[in-house]
């Protein structure tokens, strides 16, 4: 007969109470695992979005830095323009490995969706852009080769939305310009999926923006001093310099206060669950007052009784936290949808990432908190004397 078996069977005496306590612990574990998973997933997705840019510094026309950050991450339409001639000067900096000009443009497409919508086009340099975005893979076809070609490469979702295949023609709304689809990208999980790429000269011609760009992506040499470069770029007139590190810091800072609030809620949930644990175990100890005394008369040392009651706490916490982690895993998609609705900006890809380390960490943290909560009930149980049990029997 093992103490653990006795402890397990003790919990089965009041099944409803045990189930409710486990549920309380599970809810707190769910909240904790989801939040830790979000914390990890958000950073990971943000880093991936930024890495997938292919460049570490972006030059845009002077304006709001947050707008520039949004432009980079969400693929919004650039409202301000830079001169394309900047390319030459910027690429002469020793830290710069490669630069790529980009021109974002958008038109209203009345056939898009139920009541029309914006179609976004990104004019890119057919030489430098594919090199910087070397990780992009094609489902079919390839990049356009000519700087002024009337050709387009569609992101995975853009091609699905427009229902285009390689070789199909695509008419840019309002501009009456027909381009041929020469490539369709594989899904990347980033904003590239919804983008239609055209040669930068084609976009300049079609949208009347000759010699203008909305952004200049700069890839720096490995190990180069990015801060030194950005300091130098700040001296350029009418230029907004945005480094990826700045963008990341800005977003992380914006999110940190919200995170603190949500983590406070998680801590409160854990405290409530632990009060539930104390209540359940203490009630169970009081109900078994005589029985615990009888166990002592059978030869149980105070430490045995302590271990017995602590083992009950351990089982409750292990069951509750495991259930909570399973809930968090099973409902992570729903949690992600909810978070996306609540946040003004969320990176693409999985926002809630719960791996085995995080799951084990959550189970460990909740169980440790539970065992701490179980100290007092276990101590009370260990202090019961057989004589007290016999006296209460006589009463």
């Amino acid at each position, binding site marked *: 007969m093992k103490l653990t078996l006795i402890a397990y069977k003790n919990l089965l005496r009041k099944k409803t109470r045990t189930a409710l306590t486990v549920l309380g612990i599970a809810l707190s574990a769910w909240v904790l695992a989801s939040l830790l998973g979000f914390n990890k997933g958000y950073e990971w997705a943000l880093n991936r979005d930024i890495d997938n840019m292919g460049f570490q510094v972006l030059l845009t026309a002077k304006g709001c830095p947050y707008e520039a950050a949004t432009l980079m991450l969400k693929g919004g339409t650039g409202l301000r323009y830079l001169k394309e001639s900047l390319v030459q000067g910027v690429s002469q900096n020793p830290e710069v490995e490669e630069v790529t000009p980009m021109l974002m443009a958008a038109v209203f497409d009345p056939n898009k969706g139920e009541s029309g919508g914006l179609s976004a086009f990104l004019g890119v340099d057919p030489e430098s852009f594919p090199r910087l975005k070397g990780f992009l893979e094609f489902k079919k076809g390839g990049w356009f080769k000519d700087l002024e070609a009337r050709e387009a490469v569609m992101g995975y979702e853009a091609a699905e939305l427009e229902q285009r295949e390689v070789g199909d023609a695509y008419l840019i709304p309002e501009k009456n310009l027909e381009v041929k689809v020469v490539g369709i990208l594989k899904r990347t999980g980033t904003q590239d999926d919804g983008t239609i790429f055209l040669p930068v000269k084609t976009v300049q011609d079609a949208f009347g923006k000759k010699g203008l760009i909305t952004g200049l992506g700069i890839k720096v040499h490995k190990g180069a001093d990015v801060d030194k470069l950005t300091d130098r770029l700040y001296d350029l007139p009418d230029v907004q310099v945005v480094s990826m590190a700045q963008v990341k810091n800005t977003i992380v800072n914006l999110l940190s206060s919200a995170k603190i609030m949500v983590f406070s809620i998680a801590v409160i949930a854990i405290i409530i669950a632990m009060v539930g644990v104390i209540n359940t175990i203490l009630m169970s100890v009081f109900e078994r007052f*005589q029985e615990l005394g009888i166990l002592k*008369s059978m*030869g149980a040392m105070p430490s045995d009784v302590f271990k017995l009651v602590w083992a009950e706490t351990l089982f409750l916490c292990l069951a509750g936290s495991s259930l909570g982690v399973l809930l968090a895993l099973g409902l992570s998609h729903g949690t992600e949808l909810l978070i996306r609705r609540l946040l003004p900006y969320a990176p693409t890809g999985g926002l809630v990432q719960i791996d085995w380390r995080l799951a084990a960490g959550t189970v460990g943290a909740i169980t440790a908190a539970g065992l701490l909560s179980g100290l007092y009930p276990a101590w009370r149980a260990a202090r019961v004397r057989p004589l007290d049990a016999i006296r209460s029997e006589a009463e």
Partner: protein
Amino acid sequence: MENILEARDLRRLYHRGSEEIAALDGVSLDIKKGEFVSFVGPSGSGKTTLVNILGCLDNPSSGTLRLDGQEIFAAGRRLGEGELTRIRRRVFGYVFQSFHLVPTLTVLENVLLPFAFYRKEGLAADGERLLGDLGLAARKDHLPGQLSGGEMQRVAVARALVNAPEILLADEPTGNLDTKRTGEIQEVLLEMNRKKNVTIVLVTHNPALAKAAQRVVELRDGKLA
């Protein structure tokens, strides 16, 4: 026959406000190895208090107690719960009026419960044989809720005997049982005493059960009558 318990001038005082109550007032007695002794007397006479001290469940206020020649309690010396537990689990088995079986454990698991805490060296886990001796072999996988009162008390007796105690203390073991079940328990106690030479100290209000013992000790107002 050797004495297994020697009590000298045992006193146990309780305080209720400023009043001092002597639950036990200078009791001296010897109990021999393998003896079956029953304690009788009206409620409040001190029988249970005496048995609790003899069974190392409580410290006396004064007096001495020797167990198998070894001094356990002496004037001014009180034992802690840990020390008392070490003596209890080596020497004593206890049966109480309420059976105190764990409702979620089977009959066999209840009998083997003391082994979770202590097992005498070289002792086999003979729960099933013990249950067979007590006529409960067919009930070993049942839960206590499926047993009659007499069967539950027999399980409690089996549990008290599983660690092969030298002394079995039974405090009103038939208090919750009818005449038929009382007879069953009486038989079990007599058999354990005769066949296994277990010393039995019994507290009872039942005159017929008390007479089954080799010696009847009467208490009145905390003293031997």
